[in-house]
């Protein structure tokens, strides 16, 4: 058997995987643990079991308002990034030598978001004064756009271009070709991109921190402020709810599209 891996190495690999899992997941487990502790101090392992911090979080105006702001923002960003990014991906997939344009579209992935954030703040302030919801919406759409573009382009690269050619020879106009042929081909890519766009916007903290103002605090910004000031079990409860949302998104992503496929693009 040439594929055989020495037994000691197999064991070592298992130990390594367990340690890596510990490293990757421990911070999340700990947050969940703190959130159900009875003690009002941050402690892990938790003392006792209580859900009172969840009641606290749901009763807090700051957190609830921040949650609705984040949710509204993420929903709109999902819509705008998927529409704009999907359209751009369809156009790019038909151009020859669209490499330079594609690089340009993916550039928000390469440029650190702190640099973009500070530029956005400065430009917005010089043009319109105080930052607003619209500023956040634009900024989040810019950073979510490359993800939609990449997932959609990956799907289109694997799809058969002659399907559309066939529809054309049979006399379908381009709106009909788009609706009946191209869009169905893109669907898995668009869906994966939409998931990522939602997730990125909902979790994003850098742009939201730079563009925040007293009436414009997203959930991650609210959490950050609390952590800077003094972490308490209530913020752990809010964080746990964010983790639960992420888990839900991942399960949906896997059910609808298959994680294996999404991870390798």
């Amino acid at each position, binding site marked *: 058997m040439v594929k055989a891996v020495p037994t000691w190495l197999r064991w070592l690999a298992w130990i390594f995987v367990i340690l890596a899992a510990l490293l990757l997941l421990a911070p999340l487990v700990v947050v969940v643990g703190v959130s159900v502790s009875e003690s009002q101090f941050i402690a892990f392992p938790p003392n006792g079991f209580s859900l009172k911090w969840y009641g606290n979080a749901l009763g807090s105006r700051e957190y609830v308002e921040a949650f609705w702001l984040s949710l509204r923002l993420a929903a709109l960003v999902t819509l705008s990034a998927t*529409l704009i990014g999907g359209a*751009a991906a369809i156009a790019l997939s038909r151009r020859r030598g669209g490499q330079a344009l594609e690089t340009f579209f993916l550039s928000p992935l390469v440029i650190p978001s702190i640099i973009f954030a500070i530029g956005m703040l400065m430009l917005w302030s010089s043009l319109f004064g105080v930052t607003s919801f619209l500023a956040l919406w*634009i900024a989040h759409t810019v950073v979510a756009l490359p993800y939609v573009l990449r997932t959609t382009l990956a799907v289109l690269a694997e799809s058969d271009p002659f399907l559309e050619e066939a529809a054309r020879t049979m006399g379908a106009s381009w709106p009909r070709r788009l609706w009946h042929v191209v869009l169905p081909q893109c669907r898995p890519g668009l869906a994966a991109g939409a998931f990522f766009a939602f997730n990125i916007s909902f979790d994003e903290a850098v742009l939201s921190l730079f563009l925040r103002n007293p009436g414009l605090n997203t959930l991650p910004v609210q959490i950050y402020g609390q952590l800077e000031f003094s972490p308490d079990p209530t913020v752990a409860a809010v964080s746990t709810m964010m983790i639960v949302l992420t888990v839900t998104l991942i399960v949906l992503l896997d059910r609808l599209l298959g994680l294996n496929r999404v991870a390798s693009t």
Partner: protein
Amino acid sequence: MTDRREAWLFLVPGLALLVLGFVLPILRMLVLSVLGPDGLTLQQFARFFQDGYYPSILWRTVRMSLVITAITAAIGFPLAYITSRVGPRLRLWLIVMVILPLMTSVVVRTFGWMVLLGRSGPLATTLRDMGLVGRSFSLMHTEAAIVLGMVQVLLPFMVLSMLGVLSRLDPRLEEAARTMGCSFLQTIRRVVLPLAMPGVVAGSLLVFTLSASSFITPSLLGGARIEVLAGSIYKSVTQTLDWNFAAAQSVILFLGLALVLIPYLRLGARHG
């Protein structure tokens, strides 16, 4: 032809968004960095290099980013390799293990590290019970805390960059190496690692860029005393309200990263 017009119609919203909402802000930042009360000036840059304080922050940022990148690559490669070679069920679980933290907000993950590393956290308590450290021992507000937190935050990026390349490697290459007498580890070193190099390099660049430009994890885990460049930028914007200086610091970060990225991008372009 309608095809052409359609293609442009589909590109225009994206192009407009990126030019107005991305390029223009960055240009504005560049302009502010060299703008003084009376015209163009490099005064802000001179201020950065004037005394030892800001250069020391820059040096710390570079040093820590290099350490973080090296550790992330060292853990990421075996993890990505194992993920690419196990059966589909286990593979799915390993991917979940990588993606779950990736898709969780950095703020939440950093909070987890604050609990883990804090004075009453499990690490400090265990060490104290073993009598290894004193009562007030805490890992918080150390460079080690930042490195540990950042490695966890950035490891998924490294693993996914490598996984893409490793999954596409033909396993028959490894089998061939084995039949010709290579041991398992030799095969990894002489066949897998060289072929996976594009993924390793891409992942390392991504991790280096991200770690040099993050401030949330470093400022929460490192505290006020251990400042990094991105944290100093954030402070200049929100606390001292010195935007021109903040812009200049961003330009320095930007140029520093370009210095690292551009040679690689050109190399990549040449190899197609």
